[in-house]
């Protein structure tokens, strides 16, 4: 039997607004428990929500980027259920009139691209956090996250493998970070997804029974959880049994999915329109303003890098694939003209360093100014590329500027022909036998003389000048 996998993803994107969706409390991550909480967030009697329009603008920016329809009148609904970290006993979300309808996202596979259609994207508030294992005999509640704006993006069931699901999430990550809609930090839960997975016989038009894997928050876990679930369902079907429609959790420590206890989710959410909020009306002018302020997207950046800056296709793609890399490149490119050298460094040394340290470029000691200065010093031959690498290492550790390091360590390149010639004559005079051997045809010895010159100058001699003067003197 040949089986076919059908996957739909519900992605929760935490919007990077300064304050919450319905209150003016901060959304900053990592504050001490229950400090980013005001009267509204803890659902005190008598409080009322007010909409944070910034969240709408971000949602609309996302909608425009995926070419979706924007509902200019959108309403909120209440989703009712009891849970200790849900202060009001209901979540404010959008049912019938979500802000974003339709649209599509292109995902990149090994050697092709595929378009995944989007059903809808709606705004809702996040719940707080329950902590069950820190206090003996008690559960603790942290409401810092309660009320944080989420954009829930629902895809059509058009994803056919775990690999495609990962590609979809990567495309989503790239898009939301590029749009500055979210920080996309998966470890902090800013981007997470629920996967609806079902299996059917290849060629069948009806969908099989699906299960929903909740709350997956890394690319690696998405792939593993879905693959586990595919195998599990195929096994059930091949045994002639039926898949149970249920909600499951992925346990990364055991690499398996298992059903959630039925108590962990309610069945009847009793949705109804939120009477505390008027419909939110978005004007044509507001949408136009969002269009006018649209950030440059990866494809556009790639084209600009190739067209205006003359980077290779490969370099353009790599740099534009990550928003933080592209932002850094754009900032540095304002301070240097040697774009290809800058891109070589970013893709080479700098990426290697960031990978090794496992940090984002913006969290490192590197700044666009310093890197541009380094590129300029190599470009204007103040230093050689090789010295550049040692300066870079020093920069990463001390945070000093390249000029400071060049100055304090005396690393300035010697480009004065007279000075170089003097050193070369010293080398020739001190190595008569090697000179004789070279002149009798041992060409390989040329490198020996270069090495000696570099040794005497501690690597600071301009290699081009050394080459040409040496060749001249060894005739």
């Amino acid at each position, binding site marked *: 039997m040949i089986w076919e996998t059908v996957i739909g993803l519900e992605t929760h994107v935490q919007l990077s607004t300064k304050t919450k969706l319905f209150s003016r409390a901060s959304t900053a991550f990592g504050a001490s428990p229950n400090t980013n909480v005001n*009267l509204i967030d*803890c*659902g*005190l*009697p*008598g*409080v*009322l*929500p*007010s*909409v944070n329009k910034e969240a709408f603008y971000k949602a609309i920016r996302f909608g425009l980027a995926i070419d979706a329809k924007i509902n200019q009148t959108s309403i909120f609904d*209440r989703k*009712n259920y*009891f*849970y*200790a970290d849900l*202060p*009001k*006993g*209901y979540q404010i979300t959008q049912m019938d009139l979500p802000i974003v309808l339709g649209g599509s996202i292109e995902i990149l596979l090994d050697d092709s691209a595929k378009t995944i259609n989007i059903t809808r994207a709606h705004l809702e508030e996040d719940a707080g956090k329950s902590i069950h294992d820190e206090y003996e005999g008690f*559960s603790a*509640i942290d409401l810092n996250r309660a009320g944080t704006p989420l954009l829930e993006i629902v895809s059509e069931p058009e994803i056919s493998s775990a690999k495609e699901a990962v590609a979809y999430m990567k495309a989503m990550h790239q898009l939301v970070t590029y749009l500055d809609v979210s920080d996309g930090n998966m470890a902090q839960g800013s981007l997470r997804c629920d996967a609806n997975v079902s299996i059917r016989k290849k060629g069948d038009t009806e969908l099989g029974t699906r299960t929903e894997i909740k709350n997956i928050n890394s690319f690696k876990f998405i792939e593993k959880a879905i693959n586990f679930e595919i195998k599990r369902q195929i096994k059930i079907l091949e045994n002639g049994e039926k898949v149970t429609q249920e909600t499951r959790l992925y346990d990364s420590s055991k690499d398996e999915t298992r059903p959630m206890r039925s*108590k962990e989710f309610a069945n*009847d959410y*009793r*949705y*109804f329109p939120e*009477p*505390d*909020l*008027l419909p939110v009306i978005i004007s044509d002018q507001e949408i136009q303003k969002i269009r006018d302020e649209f950030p440059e997207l990866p494809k556009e950046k790639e084209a600009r890098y190739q067209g205006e800056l003359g980077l290779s296709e490969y370099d353009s793609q790599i740099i534009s694939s990550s928003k933080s890399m592209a932002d850094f490149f754009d900032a540095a490119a304002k301070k240097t003209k040697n774009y290809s050298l800058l891109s070589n460094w970013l893709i080479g040394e700098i990426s290697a360093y960031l990978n090794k340290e496992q940090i984002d470029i913006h969290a490192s000691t590197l700044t666009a100014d310093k890197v541009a200065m380094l590129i300029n010093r190599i470009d204007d031959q103040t230093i050689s590329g090789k010295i550049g690498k040692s300066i870079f290492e020093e920069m990463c550790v001390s945070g000093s500027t390249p000029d400071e390091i060049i100055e304090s360590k005396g690393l300035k390149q010697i480009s004065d022909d007279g000075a170089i010639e003097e050193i070369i004559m010293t080398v020739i005079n001190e190595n008569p036998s090697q000179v004789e051997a070279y002149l009798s045809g041992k060409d390989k010895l040329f490198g020996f003389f270069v090495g000696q010159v570099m040794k005497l100058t501690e690597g600071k001699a301009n290699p081009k000048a050394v080459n040409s003067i040496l060749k001249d003197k060894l005739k």
Partner: protein
Amino acid sequence: MSVQFKSITELRAMLDNKLISAPELTQESFQLAKKYKELNCFVTMNEELGTKNANTVDLNNKNASTLAGIPLAQKDLFCTEGLRTTCSSKILANFIPPYTATAVKKLEDAGSITIGKTNMDEFAMGSSNETSYFGNVHNPWKKGYVPGGSSGGSAAAVSAGIVPAATGTDTGGSIRQPAAHCGITGLKPTYGRISRWGMIAFASSLDQAGPLARTAEDCAILLNAMSGHDSKDTTSLSSNVPDFLENINQPLDGLKIGIIKEFDLSDLDSEVQARFEDSKKIYEKLGAHFVEVSLPNISASVPTYYSIAPAECSSNLSRFDGVRFGYRAEDIDDLNDLYIKSRSEGFGDEVKRRILIGTYALSTGYYDAYYKKAQQVRRLIKNDFDNIFQSVDILMTPTSPNTAFKFDSKGMQNPVELYLEDLFTISSNLAGLPAISIPHGQVNSLPVGLQLIGNFLREDQLLNASHIFQQNSDFHLAQPSLEGF
């Protein structure tokens, strides 16, 4: 000089003429509250802070408001910072809010003195004040009779002359019906006229705060202070707030008053009918004329209301779960047990009944038949009013089908009987329209109320029509004997 039964306007004059000081006035009010403790109007007194505020209020300031130094009572569902706010429920019996409701704050900012929090039906669910966790409130006109509800404590406190005015809230008649039963004036403004911030919600799309006072003029004074857009309540209206006192004396010549055909008054007590006919004559004498109008969908008001209000209440009351504030049951096994026990022990029967009705009305499979249908009918009712107000200025009905009744006589066995108390008042909540109840005589020594319903944002017309009526009659001056208290 006694301050009992004095209106705000009268007390203002006494303060301005230095016949009494603000601290003395407030102490008088506290004394009256103590004297009539048995009425059970108050759940919590605000003696310490009220005294302090009365001692510091500045009456000599040129800009001092009409309300400066005037004692008021607040319905116990307005959150008051540092002052217990219970909604007359066990579940909030020890709840002290960290903030003050906008409506109360505006009154206090105008210099008025909050002397206490008034008893009410639990979470404003009831028409007799008998669902309160803190016991029944007596009608000042007759011991052992209900004051009406849900703002029963506020109505009784004003009726007994303890305070000249009080705040109430009206979701289906909760200001107007107790005002009628206690012989005072009560105004439910247009939905959104007054901020709901800090008002503990019963049914969000229907709840509206308003004043209860001895006269329409005093209601205008309170409405002036309470109204206006509040950025903390996005459903509050940004419309301009007129000075409601300014046009209160306009003659009523040519005023067109509609009588709703669908309300068959012939079923009512003949004396209640007679009072209604008498008031028509008074208005005719004042230059108004009457037309019969039809609101074809208005008879569906009660079932519509009792689908929408419980649905919203079932959701609004979910936050009372024993987790963050309020009553928490002891000896619990797990989270579910915490919910079940805290809510079972914390809520009274009527609140539980409405939560159940509302939960049912919103459930999958019933939503379309109940909640959604009710919202559609609500729209039809609103359209009926819109149409009628093309041709009449105000509508007139009795406030309540009957006078105040004895404790335990209604609704205890058959809740629906009590729900019909709201027959005349409910439709203006559904349509979001302003409505006022003014006293217009007595039946068997108990007050009867006359209701005027106005067009959207036309509280000015209601206050004008009520004030002129009160200038030309003395029903509003009648005082309860307070026999036996």
